[in-house]
C-alpha cells in the first residue's frame, strides 16, 4: 500500500496534526548537555589523578567535583522543570525499573552526589580544609565531627572514590544516550550507538569545560590529547550512526533523511560536525604539535557543538516517527 498522502481527522494530539510531537524541549537539551558535561568532568578529573598517581596541585581540579555537583544540580533543576507532574518527583526514588534507562539515570544521578562530594572533600587542599574547619567549628561541634570523619574517609578511600566517580561518570554519559537510543518509536534515535556517542561527546565537552580553568600545563596537555581522542571517537560514532541509516532497513533510511539532505542537514554539519568537532580537532592538533598556548576558542567551539548536537538530535528524534514510513 503506497500511500501518497494521508488525511487525519484533526482530533488527536497527534504527530501528523501537530508537526512536532514535541514533549521534550529546551529543559531536556540543557539536562542532556550538562549531564554529558558532568560525566566528562567526573571521568576526566578521576582519570587525571589516576594517571598522575598523586593529587593535583591546580585549584581548578580541586574544585572540579563541587563544580560538577553544581552543574548536575542545575541539570536536575532543568529536568524538574520538564516534569508535568512535579509534586510526584519523589516517585523516581520509590522504584527501580531495570528496563527503563530513565530509572537507571535517576539512581545514577543520586549516587553522583555522595561520590562526587566525597571526592571533592578529599581533593580540598590543606588550606581550604582549615578554613572550612574553622567555619564549621563555630557553628556546631557535631557537624565538625562529621566533617572530620568525611575528610578522613575520603582520604583513606581515595582510590575507590576515583574509580567510583570514573565509572559512575561513564554511566551517566552512556545512559543519556541509551535513554534516547532504546526508543524504538523514535526511529531517528533508535540505535545503540547513541550511548557511546553521548559518552564521547560528554568527555569532549567535559574536557573543554575543564580547559577553561587554570590547570597545570601537563594536565592541560593531557586533557587536550584526551579530548582529541574523544572527538575522534565522536566522529567515529557519528559515522557509524550515518552508516546504520544509509545501510539500514526502510525505517533507518527514512530516519536518516533529516541529517542527510533534510531540514537538519545544514545545522548538523556546520554546528556539530564542523564547528563542534573537526575544527577543534584541527586546532588542537596544531596546538599540541606547535606547543602553542591554549586559547578559549577551542573549548567554546566544542561546547557549542555539544549543545547543538543534543538540541538537533532531540528535535529531529521527536519528529521522527513510524508514520513517516508510509
Amino acid at each position: 500500500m503506497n500511500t501518497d498522502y494521508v488525511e487525519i481527522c484533526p482530533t488527536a494530539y497527534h504527530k501528523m496534526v501537530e508537526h512536532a510531537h514535541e514533549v521534550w524541549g529546551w529543559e531536556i537539551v540543557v539536562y542532556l548537555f550538562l549531564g554529558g558535561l558532568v560525566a566528562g568532568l567526573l571521568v576526566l578529573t578521576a582519570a587525571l589523578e589516576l594517571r598522575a598517581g598523586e593529587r593535583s596541585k591546580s585549584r581548578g581540579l580541586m574544585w572540579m567535583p563541587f563544580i560538577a555537583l553544581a552543574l548536575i544540580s542545575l541539570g536536575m533543576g532543568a529536568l524538574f522543570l520538564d516534569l508535568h507532574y512535579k509534586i510526584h518527583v519523589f516517585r523516581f526514588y520509590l522504584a527501580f525499573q531495570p528496563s527503563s534507562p530513565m530509572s537507571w539515570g535517576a539512581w545514577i544521578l543520586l549516587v553522583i552526589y555522595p561520590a562526587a562530594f566525597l571526592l571533592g572533600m578529599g581533593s580540598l587542599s590543606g588550606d581550604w580544609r582549615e578554613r572550612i574547619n574553622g567555619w564549621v567549628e563555630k557553628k556546631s561541634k557535631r557537624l565538625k565531627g562529621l566533617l572530620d570523619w568525611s575528610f578522613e574517609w575520603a582520604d583513606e578511600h581515595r582510590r575507590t572514590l576515583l574509580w567510583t566517580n570514573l565509572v559512575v561518570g561513564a554511566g551517566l554519559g552512556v545512559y543519556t544516550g541509551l535513554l534516547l537510543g532504546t526508543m524504538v518509536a523514535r526511529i531517528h534515535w533508535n540505535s545503540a550507538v547513541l550511548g557511546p556517542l553521548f559518552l564521547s561527546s560528554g568527555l569532549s565537552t567535559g574536557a573543554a569545560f575543564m580547559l577553561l580553568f587554570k590547570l597545570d600545563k601537563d594536565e592541560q596537555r593531557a586533557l587536550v590529547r584526551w579530548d582529541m581522542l574523544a572527538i575522534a571517537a565522536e566522529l567515529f560514532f557519528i559515522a557509524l550512526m550515518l552508516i546504520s541509516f544509509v545501510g539500514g532497513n526502510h525505517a533507518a533510511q527514512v530516519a536518516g533523511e533529516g541529517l542527510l539532505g533534510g531540514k537538519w542537514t545544514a545545522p548538523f554539519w556546520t554546528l556539530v560536525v564542523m564547528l563542534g568537532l573537526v575544527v577543534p580537532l584541527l586546532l588542537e592538533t596544531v596546538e599540541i604539535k606547535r606547543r602553542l598556548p591554549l586559547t578559549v576558542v577551542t573549548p567554546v567551539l566544542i561546547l557549542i557543538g555539544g549543545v547543538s548536537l543534543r538540541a538537533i538530535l532531540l528535535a529531529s528524534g521527536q519528529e521522527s516517527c513510524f508514520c513517516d514510513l508510509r
Partner: protein
Amino acid sequence: MGLLYDPDRLKRPLIRRDKRGSQVFEEVDWKTALDHVAEKLSKYTATPEALALYSHGYGGTWFKHLVKAFGTPNIGAPSDAQCRGSRETAFALTYGSPLGSPEHVDMPHSRVITFIGSHLGENMHNTQVQDLATAISHGAQLIVVDPRFSTVAGKARHWLPIKPGTDIALLLAWMHVIIKERLYDREYVEQHTVGFDELKKHVEDKTPEWAFTRTTIAPEVIVETARLIGGARPASLIHPGRRTAWHGDDTQRLRAIAILNALVGSYGRKGGFYIPAKPELPKYPTPPYSRKRAQPADWQKGQNYPFADSILAHGLRDAVFPGTADYDIKAWLVYGCNLPLALPQPERTREAMEKLDFIVAVDVLPSEITGWADVVLPEATYLERYDDIAAPPYREPYLALRQPVVEPLHDSKPGWWIARELANRMGLAEYFPFENVTEYLQTRLEKGGYDFAELKEKGVILTEPQPLYIEDGLEPTFCPDTNKIEIYSQKMADAQMPGVEPLPHYTDPEEPNRADEEFRLLFGRSPVHTFGRTTNNRFLSSVVSKNVVWINRQIADEMQVTCGDWVVLVNDTWTCGTCGKQHSGKSRPSAKCSGCQAEPAEFVQEKPVRSDPIQVKRTRRIRSDCVYMVHGYGHDSKGLKFARGRGASDAKLMTRVQVDPVMGGTGMNGNFVRIEKTTAPKEAQS
C-alpha cells in the same frame, strides 16, 4: 449534552429594543412576551393568510396546528424547495406517492447501491448509515457518482467523478445500455409500468460515447457500471439522495433516477425500495379548522409550478415584498429554522426581514434568525420536553416518544406549552383543550389502542408488521388513474411547459468560466454536526470546529496555496435587467439570459460577495473545476459566542439560484466563485 449546557442558549423570552437585526433585546417574563405576540398576531384575525409559519423538526407540530387553526395556508420549510422537494415530486409523478422521510430504501438487502451525489456517511442520518454499513458487511457493491471523493466513494467499487450538472446524461446512458443489453426486469416492466417504448426511443441515441463528452466519464466505465447496476436487479438500488436541489433540472434528474429504479425493478422489491407501513394513530380530538383558507402565497404573480407538492419556503419570503405574490405576507412565526443561513440569497432574506411587520422566533439557540426577530421565545431542548408522538413510515412501523429527562433549564418552555398559551390568547383555546401534554399524549395513544405508560418506559413501541415487498404478496398501488409506474409521464406532457418534459431531457449546465479562474461551489455535511445548528456546541466542536475549502491539488499548486493557507471565496453576480434572473461570473456572460433570452448587455453587475476567510485543504479528492466546503459555519450571531466567526459561511455565497420549473425548488449548486489569497484573520480560531 453540549446543547443542554450550552452557555449561549436562549434562557428567557426577549423583546427587541432597537432596530431589527441589531440584536439588542430586553429580557421579559413569559406573560409579557406571549401577550405581546398574541396582540401582534391578532391583527391578522381577519386576514390570517398574512401570517407565515416556518417549521422544521418534530417539535413543530404544535405550531402547525396553531396556525392552521388561525387560518393561514402558508406553512413552509426549507427542507422542501431547498432540499428534497424535487425528489418528492419526481417520485410522486413516477410512482404515485412521494418518497417521504425517511426514504424507504432497503439497503441491507441490496447487492449494488448507486449513489448520485449523496455522501451518506458524511451526512449522518443514523439509521441509514447503519443500513449502509450492514449492506457493506453483506458484500454490497457501491457505485458513487460525485465530483468529490467522499467517504462513501472510498468504499465504492467505482467512483465516477462526474462533471457537475451532467448526471442526467449519465443516467440516460445507463438506461441506454441496460435496455440495449436487456438488463432490465422485463416481467416487472411489463406488469407495472407504462411508457417503456417511449423511453426506449428516447434513449436510443444516448450512447456511452455521447454521455462521455458531457460527463467526462469514460464510455467503458459507463458500460461496466450499467452492467453492474442491471446485473444485480432487482436488488439494485439507485439511491435518490436527500438534498437534491442542485441545478434547477432536479425534478427531471430524480425522475431519471426513479425511472432507472423502475427498469431494474427495485421499487417495492427486496434490496430496492420497500413499501413502508405507517402505524395508525388517531388524531387528538379538536374542532375542525373552521376558517376558510386562502391559496398559499408562495408563487410569484404569474408563476406556475404545476407539480409542486409543498409550499416553497423561499416563495413565502418573496411574498413579503409587496406586490410580488397574489397577496402580501406581513408576519412570520419561525420555529427552528435559521432562515438567514438556510435560504439561498441571504441578502434578499435580510431585505424581507426588514420589511415584515412582525417576526417571532421560537428557538433553542440564538441563531441568526433570532437576531432579526421582534420577539424571541426560548424553547426547551429535546432533552427537556415532550414532543408529539412520532409515527413515521418505516420497515417496522413504530411509535416513538420524545420525553424529558431533565427539567427545563433557565426559563425555557416546551413547544406545546408555548403554542397553547398563544392559542389561549388568540381565541383558539378550543384547539388546545388539554391542560398538560401528557393528557394529550395519553388520549391519542389510548384512542389508538396503545399504552402511554408502556411507551414512556420503552421509548419506542413496535406495531403490527406488514408485508414490505411485492415478493411477499404486497399489492402495490402506483399512480392514480393508471395504477402503473409512469415512466412516461402524460401529466407532465399535458402541462406543455418548458422544462416539464414527460421524459428527462439533458441540457448542458452553465459552467464556471475557466478564463476567470472560477470554480463551482459545492457544499455538504459533516458527520459530527447537524447543519449549522450544532456548530456552537462546544462538545461536538472539540472534534470538528471549522470548515475548510477543498481545492484540487493541481489548482492549489498553480495558485501556490497549500493546506492551512487562508483564502476568500468571491462570488460575482450579474442580474438581468429585464427579468431579474441572476447569472454568475466575473466577466459579463456571453450567452443570453437563461430566463428571458435578453441580451447580455442588459445585465447589471452586482457587488461581489466575499466569504469569510477560510483555510484551504489541498487535496486530490475533488475535480479541478469545483471547490467544496461543509455547510453551517461562519455564524455572525452575537449570541453564538463559540460559533461566531469560526469557519466560513457558504450560505452567504448562495447569491444565485436556478429554479426548478416543475416544482419551484431552488438549485444552489450553480454558484461560481473565484479564490483570492488572504492573510489569517486576527484571532484565527482553530
